[in-house]
């Protein structure tokens, strides 16, 4: 296979680069070892930062967030819930920090407004009566799945080729160039080569591992962060704790739910990341200081992601851009068709993509300018189904009697599943339970997939999407994936749900008696 640019990593950064390059007319392939947003892009807080959070720690990042967030609100409003945000201090928080905060915001030209405590309680009745100061900023919530999918959809429309389940496993080098990149399809095990003029390493926390395959050292430390999803939405706006960044100090609304987090724990390895019971208890305890209902509320899911902390690379660091993300051209290390982009934020993904594409285009002698700064991101129908509460709204509005629900908790009808199946086919994929789960709310409601897992599986057989006994494996993987997110939250109602799930899948079906090998 040949292409002008091979982009490695199907997170938001890779997706953004694919779109940027495709819009400039560059031919590219986007390769992802698992599925869209399998890394940090699928495991973050979904906060479109106004920048206020970084005013005391990193002014450049703060400004960058402010500018990019403002731009995205215009370019991709369909992915954003422009909720606004509050910064809230409670009794015992550092008063000097509280006093400095509005000035620091002003210095970076980030809008901020002091809110009277009584008004704050009116805006957000869930706030603790222990609050001592409240400021309002322009934070918003963003749907990272929709954002990545829409970037990829447009990139594909402009000729980009997306390869899911395709992992980079090595490079064939010659002089100062990578001649070819060795790929493996993780479903079939087949390996093949891609010859590209330029290679972009957009693998986030994996960037050091991938560059290592080319013999290049990038020193990356891993910081794990865990988050919890509540059963219902707790606040209208984003709520931040007004103190230096710490554990569990942000609550972000997302459709009908809220997301609480996060932690920051140094880890050594990045595979098989899971939220733990200790983290959950800590997050709930801390969060409850701002919003006491968090102590009692029902949680339906937890997840964890890894932030790459880019240490000192030997040289070639494009420091001119920003300290927030690292764009490494690797020329100093003897390669001139390889680029690494890592770190940064979801909020600044577009800028990261632009700077990366600029560098790649210079090397390719492509002169067309970046278009993502002025062209709105088009909506894609198949990309909308991850938004909590959307499928039910549409279903109730346009309800066709034959459009029955596959998932009752989240009210996902057949038509939505059909739309997602088509989109997976368009990207040369084969739908299975997990892939549909990633692209919709299926399995994310109160039953955690207990009922809809069975229904979706039967529906895939009904449609002929599954034809062999691989469905059992698909079901097991789907259940394991869901389990990863509920295991640390199993007390009270969710524990009852988990027991029901096991009674059904193991008690009645005996699914645990089937090994992966004899499927």
């Amino acid at each position, binding site marked *: 296979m040949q292409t002008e640019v091979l982009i490695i990593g199907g997170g938001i950064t890779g997706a953004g680069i694919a779109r940027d390059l495709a819009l400039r007319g560059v031919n590219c392939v986007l390769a992802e070892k698992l599925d869209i947003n399998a890394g940090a892009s699928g495991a973050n807080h979904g906060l479109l930062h106004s920048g206020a959070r970084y005013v005391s720690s990193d002014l450049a990042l703060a400004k960058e967030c402010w500018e990019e967030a403002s731009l995205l609100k215009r370019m991709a409003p369909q992915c954003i819930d422009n909720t606004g945000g509050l910064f809230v201090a409670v009794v015992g928080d550092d008063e000097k920090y509280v006093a400095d905060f509005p000035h620091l915001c002003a210095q970076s030209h980030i809008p901020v407004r002091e809110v009277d405590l009584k008004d704050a309680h009116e805006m957000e009745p869930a706030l603790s009566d222990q609050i001592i100061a409240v400021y309002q900023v322009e934070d918003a919530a963003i749907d990272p799945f929709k954002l990545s999918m829409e970037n990829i959809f447009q990139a594909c429309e402009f000729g980009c080729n997306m390869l899911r389940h395709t992992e980079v496993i090595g490079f064939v080098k010659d002089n100062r160039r990578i001649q070819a990149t060795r790929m493996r399809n993780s479903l079939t095990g087949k390996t093949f080569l891609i010859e590209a003029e330029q290679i972009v390493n957009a693998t986030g926390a994996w960037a050091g591992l991938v560059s290592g395959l080319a013999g290049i050292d990038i020193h990356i430390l891993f910081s794990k962060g865990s988050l919890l999803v509540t059963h219902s939405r707790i606040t209208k706006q984003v709520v931040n704790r007004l103190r230096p960044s710490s554990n569990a100090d942000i609550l972000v609304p997302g459709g009908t739910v809220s997301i609480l987090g996060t932690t920051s724990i140094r880890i050594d390895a990045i595979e098989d990341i899971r939220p733990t019971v200790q983290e959950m*208890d800590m997050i709930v305890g801390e969060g409850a200081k701002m919003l006491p209902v968090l102590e009692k509320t029902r949680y339906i899911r937890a997840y964890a992601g890894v932030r790459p902390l880019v240490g000192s690379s030997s040289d070639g660091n494009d420091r001119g851009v920003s300290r927030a993300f690292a764009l490494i051209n690797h020329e100093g290390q003897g390669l001139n068709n390889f680029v690494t982009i890592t770190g940064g934020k979801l909020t600044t993904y577009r800028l990261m993509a632009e700077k990366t594409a600029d560098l790649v285009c210079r090397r390719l002698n492509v002169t067309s300018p970046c278009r993502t700064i002025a062209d709105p991101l088009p909506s894609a129908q198949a990309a909308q189904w991850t938004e909590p509460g959307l499928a039910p709204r549409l279903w109730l509005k346009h309800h066709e009697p034959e459009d*029955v629900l596959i998932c009752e908790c989240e009210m996902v009808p057949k038509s939505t599943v059909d739309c997602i199946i088509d989109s997976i086919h368009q990207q040369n994929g084969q739908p299975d339970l997990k892939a549909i789960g990633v692209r919709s709310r299926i399995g994310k409601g109160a039953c955690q997939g207990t009922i809809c897992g069975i229904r979706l599986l039967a529906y895939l057989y009904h449609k002929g999407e599954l034809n062999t006994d691989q469905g059992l494996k698909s079901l097991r993987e789907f259940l394991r994936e869901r389990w*990863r997110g509920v*295991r640390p939250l*199993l007390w009270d109602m969710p524990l009852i749900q988990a027991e029901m799930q*096991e009674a059904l899948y193991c008690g009645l*079906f005996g*699914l645990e*008696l089937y090994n992966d090998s004899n499927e």
Partner: protein
Amino acid sequence: MTDPKIIECDLLVIGTGMAGSAAALFAANRGVSVVQVGIISEIIFASGLLDLMGVHPIQKQRIWDNPWAAIDTVSKDIPGHPYAKLNEKDIRNAFAETLSFFTSAGIRYSSYKNRNVRVLTPVGTIKPTYCVPHTMWAGVKALEDQQPCLIVDIHGLKGFNARQITVMVKQYWPGIHSASIAFPDTGHLSEVYPEQMARALELASNREKLAKVIRPFVKDYHVVGVPAILGLYHTQDILNDLQEKIGVPIFEIPTMPPSVTGLRIKEAFEKYLPKIGVRLFTQKRVLDVDTIDSGKRFVSKVGDDKIHFKVLAQGIILASGRFIGKGLHADRKQIHETIFDLPVYQTGDRSRWHLKDFLDSRGHPINRAGLETDHLFRPFDRSGHPAFQRLFAIGSILAHQDWIRMKCGSGLAIATAYKAVNAFIDMIDAQ
């Protein structure tokens, strides 16, 4: 407000699941006056299969052909397992008495004497169990003999696909095939429900129509499998009638809950337990229990959000289940017993309750938490002695078992009920 009315009885059974209902049955059969309280609607989650003992040790995934040998072995390997407090004769008697009740209530069961059977599930797995509703028996035989078999699914019935089932088992059952039909008079519906079809099939005219739809597919198949929809009340007659009309044996495959097979059990308990004298309250909970006469008698408050009446009893059988049944409750720190606050055998802190892999063959440790008892199933207090002379705990609330993985749910429920009821009667008689 007037004082709530007091109902007197010998025995109060808390719980309307399999364990509580078996206890009420055994007690009533022995002339004991029984009051039974619980939320019966939950039993419709059950599948109708009666597991006795199927898998041990679970981490080795050893599936036993002979459940009695399995019980013997588990009793030796896990001395705290409830089966270790029971003997084979009692378990056999308990089963026989329960099955004869079901027969009189219109639900016939089938099993081998000393052998587990294997049944097809709606996802296409095969599960070991002991005793199945007779409507499933032809399927058990068909699988054993690998008969040419047709599985039929129904348009609009979610979560049940015949092709899925057949491709999953094809490798060891090559003669199995699938077909898809529309249930009579539902062409205009995009969704159909098992209960609705079961009710329809109570009418002969609908059976005639269904047979007509299925018949053209039957061809050379020896047996036909359908989702469990063959009636609610006259299931045996409906099965016979359809078999005659189609010309080959038919069997039911359990469906996902809430299922008709669960509903049949609910209806049987609800209708027939009162006929043998059980005073059954199916929409109420026991809110709180006090003892009088230095722990020899119990006064239980019964109601929903407020008290409706009190029950004065000589003994209580606690069959309140685990987390689903609400006999146990867990907060972030530990597991509690909900009515008496009895000590619960814990399996470490929350980080140890569940394993990382949902399907880990070792089974989740929390499933072994529960009440520890003496050999008569009297739960212990914190000092390790029976908490009350005539309080018994039975069924899934008991510690040191994992009914889900060992496939022993109904067996444990029925057998522990039998022993507790007999122990209670012996104590009363000795007075």
